[in-house]
């Protein structure tokens, strides 16, 4: 397919009509009692004034004391005085603003996309233009000649395609938050104990786990400082570990992972139906017109040979998108990810005993699990507020030697450590904000 000149659609189009489709899971956690409790737990110990205040105000109720603590905390720590002691307007940052991955956020953290979104806008333009042309030029004729159900069905399909596309592109694919410094230090300690301090470089860090009779290797992610769960993978484009990583789709402008795979599948499935639908009815339109007026005048009626370009675009889309839908239907029914299929992780060519340990055994259960299973919430809490410093018990990880790291990874780690502050973990504040 030739690349059409890109038109940058501003976020206004993206947000228009989006209200009903936005994932709201991140919002709800802000109000849970655990949040208040954990916030109070992380008060710095040196603020004894805050502690006394807190004790006095405890009688007033938990939430009020929290707000009082926020207020006094800011007045003692920050240099700029508060202009208005308006309790809600504390200059706190939301977690998405200091997210360590290479993602873009819109709508104050509600929308999350990859860094390169140019191709996504192209997808939008192609869909809108093709459907626009269909509804403008073909539908009036077909509605009159055949049935008005055609534009209605076409319209419904179009809305479904758009809805699933936006949902796939804007939701969190299942990003795993990076380890807090304490966790990372604890893991390092365990690995050092396991390896011993020998002179030569031991093999790279892996852990083996037996799942349903198959041995699965869990790899250590040097960027996120965690052992990746099975089926998770680190996306180099977004710089995040994603659960049940399928692939990074530039057409959709996001990774496809555990939380948005079903939307992605619905998108390509409905898009296949839509392109076949449009393709079929454009051809029908041309045929009907040529029966009425003859073939050549049928072409002249429609402006600028549009049916041919339309037919050509549809023809190529049909083959590529229908093919992709078929491929993903196969993946869903065997409960594999694109990543696993491409690497041949569970193919019988690797060995006689090699089988997929995650498959439920029958196609129906696999499909139901992938498409209708419970939708896990986002683990990264984009819209939560960054809380104050957790008292750290481990010193900065300067002195830890990197066993098993390759030279490039080692220098990457060292450069990470030597920057002024480490990538702020999500449960404690960014120290740079206060110091």
């Amino acid at each position: 397919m030739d690349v059409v000149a890109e038109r940058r659609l501003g976020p206004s189009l993206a947000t228009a009509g989006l209200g009903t489709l936005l994932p709201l899971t991140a919002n709800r956690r802000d109000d849970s009692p655990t949040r208040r409790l954990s916030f109070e737990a992380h008060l710095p110990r040196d603020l004894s004034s805050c502690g006394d205040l807190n004790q006095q105000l405890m009688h007033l109720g938990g939430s009020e004391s929290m707000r009082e603590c926020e207020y006094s905390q800011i007045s003692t720590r920050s240099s700029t005085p508060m202009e208005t002691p308006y309790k809600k307007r504390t200059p706190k940052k939301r977690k998405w603003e200091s997210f360590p991955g290479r993602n873009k956020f819109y709508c104050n953290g509600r929308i999350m996309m990859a860094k390169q979104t140019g191709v996504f806008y192209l997808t939008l333009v192609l869909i809108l233009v093709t459907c626009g042309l269909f509804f403008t030029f073909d539908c009036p004729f077909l509605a009159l000649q055949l049935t008005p159900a055609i534009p209605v069905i076409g319209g419904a399909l179009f809305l479904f395609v758009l809805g699933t596309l936006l949902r796939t592109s804007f939701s969190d694919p299942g990003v795993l938050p990076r380890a807090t410094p304490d966790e990372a230090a604890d893991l390092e300690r365990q690995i050092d104990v396991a390896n011993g301090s020998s002179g030569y470089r031991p093999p790279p860090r892996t852990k083996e786990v037996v799942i349903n009779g198959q041995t699965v290797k869990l790899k250590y992610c040097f960027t996120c400082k965690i052992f990746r769960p099975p089926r998770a993978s680190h996306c180099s484009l977004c710089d995040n570990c994603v659960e049940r990583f399928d692939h990074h789709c530039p057409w959709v402008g996001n990774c496809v992972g555990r939380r948005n795979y079903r939307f992605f599948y619905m998108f390509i499935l409905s898009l296949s139906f839509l392109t076949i639908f449009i393709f079929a009815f454009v051809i029908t339109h041309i045929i009907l017109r040529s029966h009425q007026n003859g073939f050549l005048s049928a072409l002249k009626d429609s402006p600028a040979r549009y049916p041919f370009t339309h037919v050509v675009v549809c023809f190529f889309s049909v083959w590529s998108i229908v093919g992709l839908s078929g491929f993903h239907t196969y993946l869903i029914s065997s409960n594999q990810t694109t990543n696993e299929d491409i690497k041949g992780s569970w193919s019988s060519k690797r060995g006689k005993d090699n089988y997929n340990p995650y498959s439920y055994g029958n196609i129906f259960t696999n499909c139901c699990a992938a498409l209708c299973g419970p939708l896990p919430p986002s683990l990264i809490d984009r819209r939560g507020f960054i809380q104050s410093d957790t008292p750290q018990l481990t010193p900065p990880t300067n002195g830890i030697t990197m066993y098993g790291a390759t030279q490039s990874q080692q220098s990457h780690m060292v450069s990470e450590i030597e920057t002024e502050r480490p990538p702020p973990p999500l449960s404690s504040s960014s120290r740079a904000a206060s110091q």
Partner: protein
Amino acid sequence: MAETHSLQDMRQQAAIAAKVFIQRDYTNGTVCQFQTKFPSELETRIDKQQFEETVRTLNNLYAEAEKLGSQSYIEGCLACLTAYTIFLCMETHYEKVLKKIAKYIQEQNDKIYAPRGLLLTDPIERGLRVIEVTIFEERSLTR
């Protein structure tokens, strides 16, 4: 709020001696389960049975959240038919169970762990990777 009051005191006045991390147990696949192995650092602080009971209950709750049953299928299909707008009005089953888990952890902290100078952090705040157990130094407990 009296229990929280004592927890407040403890957290503000007590120093953190150590943190123990209970890692995930992947032997059943990608379902969220935590290892029930009792960490050696907690031997002096809490009864092994008690701790394992807590972790087992948490594991059961997470299994309930991710269970594939008729309820989750109905919810999934209904959501698909309404173009996922239904989640504007109601919570997903998973979120409901997460709230139950948060309440359970708070209750366990109040009743069992805080009096022993320990604190469990809800795994959801650590991306469901670990259960973080904070061990406070003994001397500053006011309870």
